[in-house]
Structure formats: C-alpha cells, structure tokens
C-alpha cells in the first residue's frame, strides 16, 4: 500500500486553517449515535476524550491504572512549550516550528510540526481556563523558562510537576464528562486486540484486570493514546506499566510502525545504583538551565567533587558547544556524557556518571537576592542561604527526590547524573489526520511517530499530546466519521469480535501453560540489556545483527520457559507483565532491523559508522530523508515503506549548536 500522508496543499502557514474549514462536519444528532473508543487517559487520551464528548460523541475510555489520573503523563516534570512570546524575546510560531524541525534533526514532517506550533498557544489558554496553576511572576503574569535546543524562553511550568498539573486539568475535564454521562470510563482494563471489520477498525478486546474477563467493545472509530515504549529497554524513566502492547497489537492488525528505532536517551537521570534497579528517575532538563555539567580533567580522579579545584574541572558541554553550552539538545548532551565516561573520566563508584553542579547558581541567585533586599554586605553564608531559597523555589521537589533516592544532599554536593531511556519518537505511523494505515484507527500523543523526527526537544511532548487531543483530533476525526453516519453500531456477536477474542484468549492460555522456570522479569531484563548495549546511545552494524539473533533466541526461550503464577480469571500482575514483555521482545527485533536499515546518524539514532571527525552525527539527506514505516508480514518479517520528507520551507542543514 502506498503511503499517503494526506498533507493539505497550500502555503505552509495556511494549510491548517484552510484545511480545518473544509473538513466535513457531523451534525449534532448524528454525533450522538457515533461511538468512539479512546484507549489511554494520559494527556492525549484525556484531552481527546473530554473534547469529543463535549462535542456530542459517545465516548468510552480505557486505562490500565486504577484511575485515569494516574497515566504516565502525570510524571512529566519540566514544562510545556508554547509560542506565546510573552517574554518578548523574539519567539514566534515560525521559530517554534523551526526549532522543532531542527531539533528533530530534519526527520519530521513540516506540515505537522507547523500545525503543532500554531495550536501551542491555545493549549496554554485552555489549561489556564481549567485552573492549571502554572508558575507566575509577582505581577500575576505567567512565568517562563528555557529548555534545551532553543534560545528563547517559551516553556510554561508548574514547579517540577507540570505533567501532573496538566493531566489533572485534562482529567477534570474528562471526569466532568463522565459525571454528565457522556463518557463511560473503564479503569483497570487493558486493551489486548483491535477488531477489524471490512478493513476498518470497529472495536477492541479488553481484559478486565480485576476479574480477568475478556470484553468486546464496539466503536465507529478507535483512538490509541497509549503512550511510549521506552520500557523495551527494561530500565527507563517511564512508569512501570508503560508498554507497547496496544500499538503492537494494532501493528499486527495492519497499522504501520514509524521509525521504531528513534528513541530518546535523556542526559540527566539518576544513575543506576545496582542490579536491583527497577526503573530510573529523571532529573528534569530544566535543571540544565542553572546547573553546570562537568567531569574531572584528570583520568582516575579519586577526590570528592568539592575537593577538585575549578581549573581541574572540564565543563565539557560549555567547551564543545559554546553557543548553547549546557542547553544543547538531549541527544547531543547524552552522547557527550557517554563519550567522557567511556574515555574514563566518569565519577561516582560506577564511574558511569557526570556531575550536575548547582554551586554557581546558588551563588548567583544569592547575590541577586541580597541586592534586591538591599543587603549589600551580606556574608557568604547569608548569600548561600538566599541562593538555596531561590533554587528550592524553582526545583525543590526535584532536589528532594534526588535526596530521597540517593541519600545525598544536592544543595551541598553536585548531583551525579547519567543518560537514560526516556521517550520514543517512533510509534504508529499516522497521516495528517492522525489516522494510522488502518481506516478508523487513530494514534495520538507519544503513541504516534509524528512530530519529533529523530530527536524530541524538551517540553514538546506535553505540547504534542494536548495539541493532538484538544485541537487536532476534534477536527480531523470529522473527515472520517462524516462518512460513517449511516453505519449502525455493529453487535459484538459479529464473527470478527469472536475471532479477536479467541486470539487473545489463546495467547493468554498459551503463556500460562508454559509453566517454565524463569519469571517474566528475567526476560525483560535480558531484553533490556541487549537493547541498551546494541540499540541504545550508539549502534553499529555488527552489534545490531548480533542483537537480532539474540532477541530471536530470547523470544524462543520466553515461549518455552517463562513461569507465570496464578490464572487468567483473577487480578494477575505477572500475567499482565508477561503479555507486555512478549510484545516488547517482538518490537525490540523490529527496532534493531530499523536501526540497521538506516545507514546514517540522525538525532537519537547514532550509527558509529556515520559520524563527523568531531564525533557528531552525520546525516545522509540524499538517501535517508524519509520516514521508515514498517508493515507486519507475520512469519515473513517486515516490509519497509518510505514516506519521503519534503522540505519546502526550511533549508535542510547540518545541525550545529556550536
């Protein structure tokens, strides 16, 4: 099937406005008889479900947590971008668009990204109207900070809890519609298959996680808002339950998977402390605003950080990238940390960490405050005290979390950080309407591949999730549903539902019947190790080929030797995990295949064979300026389809942050 991204014609800046006004509308009476299934209640799912229900559609929402408010979006820390230009520092829709395309290393679609930048402003307005308590200045206006890969201040935030506050806003809008009876909410439910009838998505099979019962649900359209798949690496900053299952089942039913190997390794996370590690914790990128990153200049340095004099410290980001310094994009910062640690300059017991130091910021803020307060002769101790207060107000919850986890006080000693898997730019391939290659099946938020190319800029995932849910899908879904007004609800006794339910049941039974010797976590950890070593921050041909062989062997072992206790008709967290890990194993193989097929370096995808003399990523625009969309062919493997990326407005260039 040829890929059609359905990008509207016309001038870039007018595409969305023009297209929006030509999409067919569905009249209110018809909306009432159209049913939409939304899988996922994170920023993308909650905002879409609330908005669609407000418009009059009948909506059903699913999430696997015990409440929609607990979706992984809740954990986002640093902030959300919008081209408001409230700081009068030269920001504009075009600049946000440009920064995002460049940040994505020229592997994203121009039209989508421009639309994202256009609607960004409205997101902030909507959230404030809902009562989201963004940080404010004393004058009562909204406060902004900067994030990596940009030179303006366009990030809105609520301390280090931006995701929480945004999600609670979207959740309250969703709960309002639930209270009105416009949305049926099914928490503790996991979607395990898509039901297709005559080639169109017509419903899902979900498992009630408490009773274990399999349920059939019909929908005229199905929206997957199921988040990212970073947990394929076992250790990541994602919540424990984050998974690829919904997207993977859709893939197996015909939805192409876009750029699966594009994963983001975030530079500032708390390093691994031992084999028991179950997940990694992000230290928000916003910390790079004020913190300085360094390692010792001497190999085999043994002195503690505070005893290393200034001239013996290597602020390597400031040294290598003077224009952006500590605020280079994530992929660049992560690789630079890895380079220093691999060269033997790492710190801490594992030597796999670098310092993130707040001493200078505390001094600087302390002096500013003393001046503001008219305390001219303030003592060193007083300046420190004032400085610590400012840092506490800005980043207090992050510092506390660091202290809880490591047992060290980051106000006194520099934090130790190391890159960790954080986000997946890849995901289900979608067209401009956010529809996958299966008619009637949509993907929103982190679950789709759309806007971030090969590297996502900080504070733009929240923006994209809410843009998709509040401002894009409510319009674009009309293009499809306006053709569906004559379709009556299909009874779930239809054979396609029967087939899908049996498919799910058989898989669950098969897994439970293996009764092997190794717990699910064993397989998940083994997969994570392969992925991190061979398909992580740097990749090469031999490693990827080996990884593919190893993953196939692991898959075989899983299906022969996994041990899952309990049964399928009860709350069984091990069974849930097993299903997710089985899908991760298959996805892992596809990620390696994708990485192997892309013979260039771009953004988070760094192939050792393709780098500049200075060790920067070397793109190959002549041969790889396309989106890789993979089709599932069962035992025959995967077929690659290419969506050419055409840059009409931005001159494609070597990315430089020097």
């Amino acid at each position, binding site marked *: 099937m040829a890929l059609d991204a359905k990008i509207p014609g016309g001038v870039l800046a007018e595409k969305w406005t023009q297209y929006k006004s030509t999409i067919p509308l569905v009249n209110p009476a018809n909306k009432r008889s159209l049913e939409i299934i939304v899988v996922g209640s994170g920023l993308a799912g909650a905002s879409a479900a609330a*908005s669609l229900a*407000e418009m009059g559609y009948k909506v059903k929402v699913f999430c696997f*947590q*015990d*409440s929609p408010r*607990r979706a*992984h979006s*809740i*954990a986002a820390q640093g902030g959300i971008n919008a081209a*408001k230009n409230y700081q009068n520092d030269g920001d504009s829709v075009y600049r946000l668009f440009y920064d995002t395309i460049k940040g994505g290393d020229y592997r994203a679609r121009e039209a989508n990204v421009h639309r994202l930048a256009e609607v960004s402003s*409205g997101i*902030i*307005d*909507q959230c*404030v*109207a809902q*009562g989201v*308590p*963004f940080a*404010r*200045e004393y*004058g*009562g206006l*909204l406060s902004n900070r900067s994030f990596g890969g940009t030179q303006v201040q366009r990030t809105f935030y609520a301390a280090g*809890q931006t995701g*929480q506050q945004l999600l*609670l806003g979207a*959740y*309250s*809008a969703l*709960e*309002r519609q*639930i*209270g009105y009876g416009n949305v049926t*909410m099914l*928490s503790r439910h996991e979607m395990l298959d898509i039901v297709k009838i005559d080639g169109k998505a017509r419903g899902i099979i979900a498992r009630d996680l408490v009773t274990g019962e399999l349920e059939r649900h019909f929908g005229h359209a199905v929206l997957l808002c199921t988040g990212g798949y970073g947990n394929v690496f076992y250790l990541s900053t994602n*919540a*424990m*339950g984050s998974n690829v299952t919904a997207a993977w089942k859709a893939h197996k039913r015909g939805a192409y998977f876009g750029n699966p190997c594009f994963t983001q390794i975030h530079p500032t996370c708390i390093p691994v*402390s*031992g084999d*028991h590690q*179950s*997940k990694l*914790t*992000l230290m928000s990128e916003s910390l790079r605003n004020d913190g300085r990153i360094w390692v010792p200049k001497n190999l085999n340095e043994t002195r503690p950080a505070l005893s290393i004099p200034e001239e013996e410290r290597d602020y390597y980001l400031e040294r290598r990238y003077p224009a952006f310094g500590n605020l280079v994009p994530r992929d660049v910062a992560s690789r630079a940390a890895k380079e220093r640690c691999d060269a033997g300059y790492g710190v801490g017991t594992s030597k796999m960490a670098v310092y993130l130091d707040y001493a200078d910021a505390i001094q600087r803020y302390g002096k500013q405050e003393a001046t503001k307060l008219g305390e001219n002769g303030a003592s060193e101790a007083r300046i420190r005290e004032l400085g610590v207060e400012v840092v506490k107000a800005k980043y207090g919850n992050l510092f506390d*979390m660091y202290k*809880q*986890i490591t*047992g060290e006080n980051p106000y006194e000693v520099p934090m130790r950080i190391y890159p960790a898997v954080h986000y997946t730019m890849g995901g289900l391939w979608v067209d401009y309407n956010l529809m996958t290659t299966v008619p009637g099946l949509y993907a929103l938020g982190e679950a789709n591949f759309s806007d971030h190319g090969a590297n996502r800029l900080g504070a733009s995932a929240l923006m994209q999730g809410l843009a998709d849910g*509040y*401002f894009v899908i409510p319009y674009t879904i009309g293009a499809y549903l306006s053709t569906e007004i004559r379709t009556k609800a299909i009874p779930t006794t239809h054979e396609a539902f029967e087939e899908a339910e049996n498919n799910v049941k058989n898989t669950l039974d098969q897994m439970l019947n293996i009764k092997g010797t190794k*717990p699910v976590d064993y397989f998940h950890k083994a997969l994570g190790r392969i992925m991190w070593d061979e398909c992580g921050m740097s990749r090469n041909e031999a490693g990827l080929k080996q990884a593919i062989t190893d993953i196939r062997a692991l898959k075989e072992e899983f299906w022969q030797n996994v*041990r899952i*206790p*309990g049964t399928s008709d*009860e*709350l069984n*967290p*091990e069974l849930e995990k097993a299903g997710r890990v089985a899908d991760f194993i298959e996805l892992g193989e596809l990620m390696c295949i994708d990485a192997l097929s892309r013979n260039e370096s771009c953004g988070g995808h760094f192939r050792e064979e393709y780098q500049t003399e200075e060790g920067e990523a070397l793109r190959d625009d002549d041969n790889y300026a396309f989106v890789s969309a993979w089709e599932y062919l069962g035992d025959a493997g995967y077929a690659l389809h290419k969506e050419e990326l055409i840059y009409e407005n931005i001159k494609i260039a070597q990315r430089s942050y020097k």
Partner: protein
Amino acid sequence: MQLTIKVWRQKNNKTKGKFETHQLSNISPDMSFLEMIDVLNIQMIEAGQDPVAFDHDCREGICGTCSMYINGRPHGPHSGITTCLLHMRSFNDGDTIVIEPWRSAAFPVIKDLVVDRSAFDRIIAAGGFISVNTGNARDANSLPINKEDADASFAAAACIGCGACVAACPNGSAMLFTSANVTKLAKLPQGQPERYIRAKKMVEQMDKEGFGACSNHGACEVECPKEITLETIALMNRDYLTASLIENREG
C-alpha cells in the same frame, strides 16, 4: 540486610485475609521499598507461590498509585514521601516489617495490598472541575493571578489522590482529599463562578461513598505525602456552609 516481612494476603473482597511471613536476605540499603517487594515476589515465584499483588506505577512519588500501610503508618515511617520513594536505608538489619493494604470501608480490598479507590474519581466527577469546554478560553495572560493565590492553589493541587489520608483517619474520612481538590480551584479567579456549588456537590458525593465523618483528629495531615494542610478542610467547610446559605436564601 536480613528482614522478616509480614504481609497481608487476601484473595479477593469476598474472602477473609491473613498475614503471611517471609524471610528475605541480601537486601541492599540502596533498594527502594518496592524493589524489596520485587525481590520478595521473585523469590515466591521461584518457590512456586503466588506473589503479592500491590499497586504501583511511576515509582517516583507522583502518580499516587502505591498504597501500603507499613509498620502501622501509611507510606511508612517518614513524613512527606510515598512508599515508592521510601528506601531500605530507613530500616535496620534484622527488622520485621509489617505490610497491610489501606483499610477503609470506602476502599474495599481487591487483592492482597490492592484496594479500590474509585470513590475518589466519583468525587471529582461530581464537581471537581471548572466548566469550560475546549476552545472557549481567552488569552492566558488576560487574567493576571497574584502569585500568592497561584502558589496556594498549586500547594493544594499537589494532592496525588493516594488515599493515605483516608487510611490514616480513625473514621476513614476523605476530608483532606476532597478539600485539597476544592481548595485548588477556590483559590483561583477562574474557580469562583462555581465555587460554592462545587464544594457542596463534592462533599455530598463524598458522603454518599461511605467515607466516615471528620472529627478533627488530624492524622490525615500528618500522613499526607504531599503535605496538604488542615487549612484546606477549614476552607471547604466554609464554602460548603456558604453554599447552604445561598441555597436557603434562594429556596
């Protein structure tokens, strides 16, 4: 570290539960409390037993999913943190640790340490929102909000909906959760139009769900991992009263 774990086991809400005792060795002080339970569960799976079901997700103190009563306190021995941020360095070699689910009539046990907190969602659905449809908003900076109010709203909005307040309360009251969610909107100008009716509807729903009455015991404030204060309860009580006065006047 060597530990003795006494953990609550209950198959479902129709059967009675009981404590079960397990021995653990080789626990590192750098492990989180939930990683310690992971180790226990792996040990049980390998021994052919049914592992302990417990709720968790973010493991960084923000999603509000984790919910354990540890040695007689919700979220364990420290104030201001959730179970997932508790680390084993807070315990000593040889300790016995007792782990139970939240216990409250309005939070029935689903299995082992997993309880049903959906009553909280229904309290929000009853009124915990500002009625604004998508697309109805005006420019965000056209409504300046003084920093003090914004900060007060934010402090109340920090509630993660974990339910420790209910678990800590001898009456099983949900006043702290409900009032935090009333206060975060009552402190903002956008929240004013529906302020009193919101408080009334949320309190009525709370009562319907079977939570106990508040007797100003204060255990909720002590155990809340997000340090929500009793002042929010005072505010909610005032707003609820005002709502009744308005109703009487109009009625």
